[in-house]
Structure formats: structure tokens, C-alpha cells
């Protein structure tokens, strides 16, 4: 039996329910995916709200990325639940004191009131044009997506733009809410000293911005490479610069949390310190902090300090972007899994054994990470985000 094999690796004394982890790799995916959503959206809003024109080529791509990942976000949770068929109870009879009960509402608000509305307004002209020009099934798809609207006069497009801008302004705090809230789910568990800190939502937010920006940066490079179009270096440099700034803030906050824990050294300190130096050493110190934070920060700093060729910068951005995503994933892993490796007695430690083709194993986790890219590919086909496509949004 699985518990028996785990027991041989338990060190010290644990409560019986702590030997087998309650939250698996799927719960690691949940904050990772929502972080990508929030980060991609915040990057998109740079152009829309803060008028950072340089990042325009990534604007629509960032929005579609956010949507693709948001659609997948609840799936790992559903797969993890003992009774997924009851999850709609959270909408019908939410328990108002529960942080988790708010997930459904925060999710729906962000999906239906922010992201879908913003994308629809931004693409409405394209959708209407497609509905007019296409034939066959696609014509009906676009007609359905147009929701009955057919007016693309300059006046109506101007209204689209104004409303879209308003939605983006509402969207920024919503994106903050979406991911800050995910941080709160962990940060508010007072029984667990690894999680319980008011820093958690803030650290989650900044790491979300970091991971979302890195993802959009990589996707933009990938998409340009696939389409054999030139990369807009001004755009790439600007996204990388914002990624660098956000990463510096994120890393500072995480280090502040760490220094505070070490200096305060409360009753949990020895237990957590031992865990970080042993069972979490690889994923926390090596992957998260060294490979996933210091190396990409160094690479990004290099591009800020030294004059490099376009090719060299692109290469450095690509490496930094991949390492950043690995680092942020490791951060989610260390929060979720790390928070369950030590006993609440502070006297023992367990291990996490991930299955492969099990319900909460590695295979479903990989499939869940591939799925948003499949959805994104579909969305890109349906709603091309290219500025040079025939359906380009005219600057209003």
C-alpha cells in the first residue's frame, strides 16, 4: 500500500493524516496557471491603460493567452476534488466565511465581466468583417460570436474602444484580485506556518506578473518564429524590461519574507529551516532561487547594462524567459508541496510521491499544461492577433 511505502520515509513524528499529502501537483498547477492569466492580462493592460505603445504587438496575444489559461484554471481543481459533481454547490450555497468559496465568483467575474468582454470589444470589428466575408460553418461561428452586432461605423468602434478601456481599468484590480485571492487561500491558513503570512498574496501577485510577462515574451518570440516574421525588438526589449522590474520587486519581497522568517525565528523556524535544507533543497534553493531567479535576473540585468546585438538579446530573453517560468513553477511547488512536507507538530517530515498515470499524477498534470496551448492555437486561428493581418484593428 502507498502509505506503507511512505511510512518508511517519514522522519520523526507526524500526525497520521500528514503522511500522505492532501494537495498534489494539481494544486501546484492551480496558482501557476492563474498566475499566468493575471500576469498576461496585466501586461496587456500596459498598452491599453498606461499607453505603453511599444508592447502593442503583444496586446492581443496576451489577452488570448490569458483567456486560454483561464479556461483551464478550474480543471486541476475539479480533477482533485473528491466530488467534482458537487462543486456547483459553491455557487448555490457559498459559505461566506470561506476564502475558497469565493473562487467561483472571482473566476466568473474575471472571465465573463473582464476578459471575454474586453476581447470581444477589441475583436468586434474583425468578427463582424469575418461574419460578412466567410462562407460555410465559419460564417456561422463568426455570426454567433458577433452576438447580433453588425455596426462597424467609426462611431461604434470609438464606443468599443472607450468601453474596452473602461473594462481594462476594471480588469487590472480584477486581475490583482484573482491572483491575490489565490495567495490569500494559502496565506490565511494559520495552522500552517509555511503558508501563514500576509506577504503571500503580495508575493503571489508579483510572481504572477513575472510569470505572465515571461510567458507572453516567449510566445511572442515563438509565434514570430513560426510565422517567419521579424520580431519587433522595441516591443521585446520593453516587455523584457518590465519583466526585469517586476522580477526585482518579486525577488525582493520573497527575500524580505525569508529574512523576516530567519530573524524572527519563531517556534516553527527550526522545522522549516531543516526542511528547506534537506527535502526542499533541490526545488527551493537550486531550482527556484538559483536557476529560476538569480540566473534569469542576471541575464536580464545584462541586457539592461551591456549593449548587445538583437540576436544576442533575443537569445538571452528566451533563456531568461524559460528559466523564469521554471522558477515560478518551482515557487508554486515549494509553497504547495513544501507546506505539507513538515508536520504541524514541528517534529517530523514526510515525502511527496507523485503517481504517473493516476488521477492526480504527472500525466494529467502534463496534459493540463498542454491544453491551454492547444486552446490558444485554436483562438489564434479564430481571432488572429497579428497587427498585419487583414483584420487589423484600425487605430482609433
Amino acid at each position, binding site marked *: 500500500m502507498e502509505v506503507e511505502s511512505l511510512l518508511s520515509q517519514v522522519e520523526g513524528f507526524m500526525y497520521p493524516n500528514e503522511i500522505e499529502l492532501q494537495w498534489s501537483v494539481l494544486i501546484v498547477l492551480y496558482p501557476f496557471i492563474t498566475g499566468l492569466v493575471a500576469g498576461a492580462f496585466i501586461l496587456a493592460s500596459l498598452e491599453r491603460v498606461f499607453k505603453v505603445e511599444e508592447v502593442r504587438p503583444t496586446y492581443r496575444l496576451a489577452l488570448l493567452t490569458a483567456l486560454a489559461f483561464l479556461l483551464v484554471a478550474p480543471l486541476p481543481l475539479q480533477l482533485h476534488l473528491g466530488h*467534482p459533481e458537487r462543486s456547483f454547490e459553491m455557487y448555490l450555497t457559498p459559505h461566506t466565511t470561506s476564502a475558497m468559496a469565493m473562487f467561483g465568483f472571482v473566476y466568473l467575474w474575471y472571465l465573463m465581466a473582464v476578459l471575454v468582454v474586453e476581447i470581444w470589444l477589441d475583436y468586434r470589428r474583425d468578427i463582424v468583417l469575418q461574419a460578412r466575408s466567410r462562407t460555410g460553418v465559419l460564417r456561422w461561428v463568426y455570426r454567433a460570436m458577433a452576438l447580433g452586432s453588425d455596426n462597424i461605423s467609426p462611431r461604434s468602434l470609438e464606443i468599443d474602444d472607450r468601453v474596452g478601456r473602461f473594462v481594462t481599468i476594471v480588469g487590472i484590480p480584477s486581475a490583482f484580485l484573482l491572483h491575490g485571492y489565490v495567495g490569500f487561500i494559502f496565506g490565511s*491558513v494559520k495552522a500552517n506556518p509555511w503558508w501563514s503570512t500576509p506577504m503571500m498574496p503580495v508575493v503571489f501577485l508579483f510572481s504572477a506578473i513575472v510569470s505572465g510577462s515571461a510567458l507572453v515574451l516567449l510566445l511572442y518570440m515563438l509565434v514570430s518564429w513560426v510565422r517567419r516574421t521579424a520580431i519587433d525588438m522595441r516591443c521585446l526589449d520593453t516587455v523584457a524590461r518590465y519583466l526585469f522590474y517586476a522580477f526585482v520587486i518579486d525577488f525582493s519581497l520573497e527575500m524580505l519574507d525569508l529574512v523576516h522568517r530567519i530573524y524572527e525565528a519563531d517556534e516553527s523556524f527550526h522545522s522549516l529551516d531543516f526542511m528547506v535544507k534537506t527535502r526542499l533543497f533541490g526545488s527551493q534553493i537550486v531550482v527556484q532561487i538559483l536557476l529560476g531567479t538569480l540566473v534569469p535576473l542576471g541575464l536580464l540585468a545584462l541586457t539592461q547594462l551591456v549593449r548587445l546585438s538583437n540576436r544576442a538579446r533575443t537569445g538571452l530573453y528566451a533563456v531568461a524567459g524559460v528559466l523564469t517560468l521554471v522558477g515560478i513553477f518551482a515557487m508554486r511547488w515549494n509553497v504547495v508541496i513544501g507546506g505539507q512536507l513538515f508536520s504541524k*507538530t514541528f517534529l517530523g517530515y514526510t515525502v511527496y510521491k507523485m503517481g504517473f498515470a493516476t488521477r492526480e499524477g504527472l500525466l494529467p498534470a502534463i496534459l493540463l499544461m498542454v491544453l491551454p496551448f492547444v486552446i490558444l492555437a485554436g483562438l489564434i486561428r479564430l481571432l488572429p492577433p497579428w497587427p498585419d493581418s487583414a483584420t487589423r484593428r484600425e487605430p482609433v
Partner: protein
Amino acid sequence: MPEGDVDRPVVDSPDGGYGGFPERQPADDPSKNFFVPKLCNHCAHSPCVQVCPVGATFESPDGVVLVDKDYCLGCRYCVQACPYGCRFIDPRSQTVDKCTLCYHRITRGLTTACCEVCPTGARALGDLKNPSDPIHDFLRDHKVHVLKPQMATGSKVYYADLDGSVR
């Protein structure tokens, strides 16, 4: 005490005192063994009740924390939130389970099963809501502790003369 006349004990020096006293036991060897029963603390301010997204975990009017198995999603947030490790997932129903304080018995005027069978009467069930219940005298006259008082959960399980090492 060496064997011999039990009425006249003498102090023994091992090996006549050569080599001193035997080594003390290493610190990580249990120097004292005792049994501390752990059960759901039926907290007045239960973290598990607070975090349950659908209210499947609730406090009964008489102050017992219970789980509605027909409602539980199996999200395990309550397992994470309980500081005492008192909750687990029932693999058969995929819902959470824990000590019910024998709710089916105590609502019929019986005591809990653990109190019923305890051969030395070390466990006792009291009615904290009843001012004339003898439990109040006991709590007043004895040194009683709750587990992890810093968690401020309003635990209703009291331990008399609890060892400080218990967590």
C-alpha cells in the same frame, strides 16, 4: 538497589565506582513515555468550519463540529486548516471525516464511546453550556491545558496536567 534485604537498602556503586556512573541515555531517546489521546477539539472558533467552501463542516447548536458527508466536496481545505491533524479523507466516500464526539450517543443522553470504555475514568464528558455541570468545578480546581493555545481556536478538549512537550 541490590538484591538482598529489602528492609535495608544500600546505595550501589556500579563496578565499585570505577568508570563512574553509566552514560545517560541520548537526548533523542524517549526518556518518558505516556499516552495522549488526540481527538477533534470541537473548537468554538473552528478553522475547519471557517474554511469549508460549502458549509459541509458546521457547528451544531450544542457546539459539536460535524461534517455533512452528502455535501462535502472533498477539497481538503479543512484538513489543511485544522492545526491538530484531526481530519482525514475517508477513501470510501472521498469526503472528509473526523471524531463526531459520538453525536449519535450524546444526543441520547449517553456518554461518548471513549469515555464509556476508559477503564480508569481518565476521560470525562462534560456539558460546558450547563453551568451546574461538574466539569466547571474540575476546570476551576485543576491545572488544565488545551493543545496549541496560541492558535486561539477555542478548543473544548481539556487535558489535566498535560506535559509541555505535547503538540
